[in-house]
């Protein structure tokens, strides 16, 4: 098979070149729409059983609102989940849905998408499901880059098992299993995703549904694995975990909303900016005469290195001079999807080796007759 790939693409550079253009060409979805469906047509007949006030409700609403915009027939949409509060999601969507086992949604979705590239496949998962028990499958999905949309609801706690610290809980977090404070250094999910060669990495927050909708749409439009971390408030076991970033006014000193080709500005009146001194980011005050918007770092969604720097804006907000937490699309890179390569490889094999009959295969190299 290696041989076949090599014959398809004479050298590695050519290989990536070809596959890049290939995925770019196919990224426009042309599937017929499903009539005049509305968001509510994507609600299933099941009662939603999250705690009142849970951030999951907003996310559900936004995803249902998004669905008719996909231009994908309802029957071609599948939600796959693991275990946890977030993973009940498929039951509430009037699409196909598979509620699997803890941590394995990404692995199940991989088999589904690889064998059925025609489907729009979504994974809803949480910080524990995705990054702890499912960490391995998560990073491998990212590197393979199947066209799957991962929505990771990060509430920094285990909700369904009633309040234990998770791989995103901060150091010192007091929970049922860390009554003296958690000792674990938390994962930075976006850095992890970038490190695993994820091709689309973004963050949104439940309390900003408009922005969430925007980013969901971007995730859906990305050809390749899209990883969207959604800060989600667990009212019962970790209420207020994301308070620093839930300012009503959306723009605060703690958050920065990033847009492609736009300078990095933040603050209530966009009074701060971020400039790059070599590879070192620096917060500048635009009210001083020293710096203007023209000096700022202009966001480039295609720049993996800079996306990495952005993802490192992860300090606790009470740290002096902390960088604001970025929301939006950090990276959107075109890269061949696994399923495209797989099915091209199959097609190439059929073309090169023909579609021989079973008899040839069974006979192997040597047969003999007994009369």
């Amino acid at each position, binding site marked *: 098979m290696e041989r076949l790939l090599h014959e398809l693409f004479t050298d590695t550079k050519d290989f990536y070149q070809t596959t890049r253009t290939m995925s770019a060409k196919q990224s426009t979805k042309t599937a017929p729409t499903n009539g005049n469906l509305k968001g509510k047509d994507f609600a299933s007949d099941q009662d939603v059983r999250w705690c009142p006030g849970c951030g999951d409700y907003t996310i559900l609403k936004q995803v249902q609102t998004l669905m008719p915009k996909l231009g994908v027939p309802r029957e071609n949409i599948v939600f796959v989940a693991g275990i946890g509060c977030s993973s009940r999601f498929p039951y509430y969507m009037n699409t196909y849905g598979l509620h699997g086992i803890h941590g394995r949604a990404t692995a199940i979705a991989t088999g589904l998408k690889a064998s059925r590239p025609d489907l729009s496949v979504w994974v809803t998962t949480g910080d524990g499901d995705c990054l702890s028990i499912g960490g391995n499958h998560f990073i491998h999905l990212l590197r393979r880059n199947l066209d799957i949309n991962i929505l990771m609801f990060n509430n920094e706690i285990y909700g369904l098992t009633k309040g234990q610290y998770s791989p995103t809980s901060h150091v010192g977090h007091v929970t049922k299993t860390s009554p003296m404070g958690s000792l674990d250094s938390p994962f930075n999910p976006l850095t992890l995703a970038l490190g695993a060669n994820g091709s689309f990495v973004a963050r949104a927050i439940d309390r900003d549904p408009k922005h969430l909708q925007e980013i969901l749409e971007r995730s859906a439009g990305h050809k390749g694995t899209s990883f969207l971390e959604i800060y989600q408030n667990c009212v019962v076991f970790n209420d207020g975990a994301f308070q620093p970033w839930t300012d009503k006014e959306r723009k605060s000193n703690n958050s920065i909303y990033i847009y492609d080709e736009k300078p990095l500005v933040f603050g209530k009146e966009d009074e701060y900016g971020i400039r790059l001194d070599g590879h070192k980011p620096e917060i500048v005050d635009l009210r001083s005469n020293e710096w203007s918007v023209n000096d700022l770092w202009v966001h480039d969604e295609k720049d993996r290195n800079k996306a990495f720097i952005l993802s490192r804006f992860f300090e606790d907000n009470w740290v002096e001079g902390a960088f604001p937490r970025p929301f939006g699309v950090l990276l959107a890179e075109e890269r061949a999807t696994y399923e495209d390569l797989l099915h091209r490889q*199959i097609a190439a094999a059929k073309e090169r080796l023909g579609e*021989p009959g079973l008899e040839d*295969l*069974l006979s192997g190299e040597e*047969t003999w007759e007994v009369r």
Partner: protein
Amino acid sequence: MSVKEKQEKFKKEVTIRFSGDSGDGIQLTGSQFTSTIAISGFDLSTFPDFPSEIRAPAGTVSGVSGFQIHFGSKAIHTPGDSCDVLVVMNAAALKANLKSLKTGGIIIANSDGFHKRDLSLAQYPVDATPLQDAKDSGYTVIEIDVTRLTRESLKDTGLPNKDIDRSKNMFVLGVLYWLYSRPLEPTVSFIQKKFKKKPLIAEANVRALNDGYTFGIATELFSERYNVEAAPIEPGTYRNITGNDATSLGIAAVAKNSGVPVFLGSYPITPASEILQYLSGLKHYGVTTYQAEDEIAAIASAIGASYGGSLGVTTSSGPGIALKSEAITLAVMLELPLVIVNVQRAGPSTGLPTKTEQSDLLQALYGRAGETPLVVVSPASPAECFSITYEACRIAVEHMIPVMVLTDGYIANGSEPWKLPKKSELKPFRFRFAKADEQSDSQTPFLPYKRDDNLVRPWAIPGTKGLEHRIGGLEKQHETGHISYDPDNHQLMTELRKEKRDNIAKVIPGQEMDEGSDSGKLLVVGWGSTYGAIKSAVTDVREEGCDVSYLHIRHLSPFPANLGDMLRRFERILVPELNQGQLVKLLRDTYLVPAEGYNRIRGVPFTVAELREKITETYNRS
């Protein structure tokens, strides 16, 4: 050249063991000899014996590679307990294998592999003379300086000695072909094909082969040569095949013939990796393969594919199956088709990964959380891996249930002649994907767990308009598939899942007696790879006048419907297994019969001799 007339003797059966350093090309020599023997119409059975380490130091006992072939003019069921002829390329090979040579057997030794250094690497004492010792103990030792002779034979090829020495195995093969009166042509054409792009190497190998043969004619070393009569074999087209290759082809045949696309999600593990390797090169036959990041992802991807309308298959060995067990419970709940191949190895934990054992039967049946009934089948020989795997896939698809295929390292690597099946023997599966208008009118919702007469639920795949539904690992309400915590519903669903599995007993073939009468004093019961050894032993003791019967179970869950009746017609039941007594427990538990076990767990197959002894002893016990 003085050609001395040598007496030709006829033999009924012969076992030869080739052995040498991993770098000596022993496996190739063995498989070439096998091909030639097979083409000549013998029945045969082989077993390769790989060193446990990939690159053990050259010349040491742990680096010895072996290949045993048993062939003859009668039905051959095992690679043979011990060999008549032992070919040793160095001292380490002799040390590792002398115990498997029959008393008085023939040793063909490469004398160049017995220098001081070789003896010391093999950890013989400094002044040891192992070949002389062997002669003194009554073995016939034929010493040939293979290295020197090969170099001489190829000296004008211009090849460096390093390359010339690689043809040593062909020289030895030539000698063996002469000794057993076999033609050279099949191997010559093999060499020419293999080294098509390196004509010089091809020529060297062919010459070494020819010169080995001529050496056999010319030398005074052999006083006789042998011939073996061909076996009366059922007419047909045959090939030689290993168990793992047969399993792979079974899966490929499903992809090509059954009407269901196949998705194989696997993770490398000894001794199952060959299946993933083989099928990865057969993508043009309709098998999609995927090497996952771990065992769990492998089965999870297969489940995802089954949900999407393929037959998900995953292949592994005991430790990997343990990792997959939670996902298997999911597949049982989802009631999706899934095939899990367990090429068993000696455990627990890492155990003896390259050795064989049958100790995962109870794991297959019970080794999971909750009540998770599935189907378990097991082939009896390398070639049978094909038909049993095909059958496993059929059951999985037609009954929407996970099926486990239990093979083991012994039949996975062992080979035997296989009569090629006709295409008509490979029936398409009876299945179809659910359509929107089948079950209900468009007003009532789709019922994903509404069952047919066999209690099988519909396979409704994404992309089917009007059948959008959600399924998962949570207990489901009967028919609707909605989440249900109702106690009575859980009882009902648990029973239905079991009944669905048990119903399969109605469609599988009834149990047949393999040997002997339908009732009597002693019945021997086997399963899996021990078939050959038990069959040979039972045949032998019957020839000696013990009226013993034998049946071999291929369907282990559910058991064939008539199995209980067959067992109850015997006074005693003996169940030989390469474990601590697993099938025997199941038989006693299921049928309340007084079955007793004969259990060995040494990582090696039963010998026919030990079984013969045990069976005779059990038969004669008052």
